[in-house]
């Protein structure tokens, strides 16, 4: 698809040839994730996280389908059916813990994937649509995760649904009717639970569809790389299979190991104890918090404490939505022609400041409301907006970037002047083995 030297699919077995002539599905797969997709040879391990996100999406869909076989989406039955899965269904506990923590790992690898894109300028031309489709996936993930968290109908499920649908009531005039329409009632109840279950089952497949578009859009210009330099010729690339399947393979095995450690030995570490209490509309938990992957946004929401022209709650909701929506404009906010942060000294410093800033927002979003935390969150939230909307455009205008390598191949030269000659070939050089 992307480069002229991309290997065409050549079926060897008669059956595959027969199939290819009628339905070229193997050809599609070969060109997308097989030997037919040339990838820059210098990708580092930060490029493994896209495949990992796909892996965790698959795990979520498979475990989710099995859980749905036992789950009752009723306000009286949901909590008990989850406990029935945990106690009485064969291996139900491992499926449920895998699904619960799979969501956390899905977000973790997706966050690393997004920050890799931010650092290496993967959102820049000609990959703007890859970035935008990725953000669409991320928004769908957030919606899916939120609705999934409501399903067990524990205390945090119920009050989380109450708080998050309450965002909509911040908007004047249309807000409250909109909230009632979304919930199917004045408070989360049977109608909300059933529709959340229906959508929670639907959206992962929508995500899968957008993932296909995301990969399709990626394969037109081909993958970016740590230098940000365009691929110039065949020597700059390696076929995806076997090189990157092997690299992704061992890395995925290692991440699965970390996932297994959490699922089997600390399955409730990332959760909240209150969600093991059945939902009770009459008793508000003292400390309502979303799951950890929403903490930075929750911190932004809570940082607006003053009614200034608009009510504080509306400011918070607008800021929270804006904090994600502004990422859609990133390709046009950062106009620097240099993609990779490695060659942008000023950008690099601000990037790491942003990483620290988001971690602080995460901490504040999960912590109790105390004067110090609130103040810290306000400073961090202000930096978040200034970073993307003020600092980044200015940096891209005034920054003096470092010289780029001539090519990808030149950037990975290890200084070997001589290569050992392959069997039977006289290259005219001394046949000494070069140690790296």
């Amino acid at each position, binding site marked *: 698809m992307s480069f002229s030297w991309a290997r065409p699919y050549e079926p060897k077995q008669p059956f595959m040839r027969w199939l290819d002539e009628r339905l070229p599905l193997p050809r599609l797969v070969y060109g997308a994730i097989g030997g037919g997709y040339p990838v820059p040879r210098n990708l580092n391990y930060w490029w493994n996280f896209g495949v990992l996100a796909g892996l965790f999406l698959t795990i979520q869909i498979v475990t989710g389908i099995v859980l749905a076989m036992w789950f009752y989406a009723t306000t009286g039955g949901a909590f008990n059916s989850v406990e029935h899965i945990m106690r009485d269904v064969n291996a139900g506990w491992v499926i449920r813990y895998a699904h619960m923590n799979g969501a956390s790992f899905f977000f973790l690898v997706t966050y690393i994937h997004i920050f890799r894109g931010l650092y290496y300028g993967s959102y820049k031309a000609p990959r703007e649509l890859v970035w935008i489709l990725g953000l669409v996936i991320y928004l769908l993930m957030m919606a899916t995760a939120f609705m999934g968290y409501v399903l067990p109908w524990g205390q945090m499920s119920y009050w989380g649904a109450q708080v998050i649908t309450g965002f909509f009531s911040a908007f004047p005039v249309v807000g409250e009717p909109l909230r009632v329409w979304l919930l199917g009632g004045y408070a989360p109840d049977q109608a909300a639970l059933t529709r959340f279950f229906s959508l929670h089952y639907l959206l992962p497949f929508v995500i899968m569809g957008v993932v296909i578009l995301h990969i399709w859009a990626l394969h037109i210009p081909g993958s970016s790389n740590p230098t940000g330099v365009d691929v110039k010729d065949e020597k700059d690339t390696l076929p995806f299979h076997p090189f990157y399947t092997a690299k992704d393979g061992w890395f995925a095995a290692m991440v699965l190991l970390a996932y*297994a450690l959490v699922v089997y030995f600390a399955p409730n570490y990332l959760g909240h104890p209150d969600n093991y209490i059945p939902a009770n509309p009459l008793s508000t938990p003292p400390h309502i918090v979303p799951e950890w992957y929403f903490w930075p946004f929750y911190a932004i929401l809570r940082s607006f404490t003053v009614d200034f022209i608009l009510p504080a709650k509306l400011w918070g909701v607008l800021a929270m939505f804006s904090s994600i929506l*502004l990422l859609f404009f990133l390709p046009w906010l950062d106009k620097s022609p240099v993609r990779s942060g490695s060659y942008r000294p000023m950008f690099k410093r601000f990037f790491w400041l942003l990483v620290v800033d988001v971690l602080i927002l995460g901490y504040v979003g999960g912590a109790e409301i105390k004067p110090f935390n609130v103040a810290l969150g*306000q*400073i961090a939230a202000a930096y978040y907006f200034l970073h993307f909307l003020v600092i980044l455009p200015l940096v891209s205008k005034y920054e003096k970037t470092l010289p780029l390598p001539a090519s990808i191949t030149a950037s990975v030269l290890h200084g070997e002047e001589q290569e050992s000659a392959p069997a039977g*070939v006289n290259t005219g050089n001394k046949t000494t083995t070069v140690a790296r």
Partner: protein
Amino acid sequence: MVRKIGFLVGLAFAGVLLISLFVGVSEYISSPPAPTAEEEFHLAPKPLHLASDGPFGHFDKQQLQRGLKVYTEVCSACHALDHVAFHDLTQLGYNEAQVKNYAGSGNYWKTEVPDINPDTGEASTRKALPSDHFPPPFPNEVAARAANNNALPPDLSMIVKAREGGAAYVHSILTGYQNQPAELIKKFPTAKTPANLHYNPYFANLNIAMPPPLTSDGQVTYDDGTKPTVDQMATDVAAFLVWAAEPNLGTRHTSGIAVVIFLLFGTVLAFFAYKNVWAEAKREVIVTGPLDPVNKAKRKSASRKAGIKG
């Protein structure tokens, strides 16, 4: 255009945040929040070590049996255990006959299960069967509150998972009852423990509705000769509640170790496969190496000449 609008939006949000910060800080300085009794006197749970802790942890069945006895004779008067069935008790080392005897003989478990009279259809009760879940002590929330000064004793089947601190929290609550410190009343005269509540520094707001359930050593007689001190009974019932919250914990640990060993093995194999696949590509980065299309062609023809297939 995008950048101009962005610039203004960014400054607006940052501006409102700085106003919020300024207002918050000046409020804090003009009227700093008063310290509360909870902040100063609430204690984190005391450390508790159980056989089920850690990645290799498994339940100590003797201890679970003692804990069941404490639950049966003390806790079950007020607290339900909704999610546990009598037949689950076989996991504590009892055989079928013992479970049947425990549930239905009336010697151990006394609360009966709601039923209907098979002849008249009127509401009645019957003795529990192994297939029943533990019947609750009160038929509904109103009855439970009416019997407990309007406090609702929570269901205990998931209490260990549903409280920060887990088993250690349960143990600390059970052993943490004490007289309210004079210091506290002196400093916070309004925070005096109200009548019908009991001072317990391990409880979030320091005053718990539950009267001390374990009051004296020997309150429960253990069959295995363990000395039933208050601390021992609290530890045993906490261990029992860990089991009640997650009966599959032992299986989880055992299978977890198998999965981790499997994945460790798989990761190492996959890593060497990766090293193997990349060996040539990593070494060959300059144009004269084996991946050079020219050299590839040369190698192919050389192999063919030498009679090597592949």
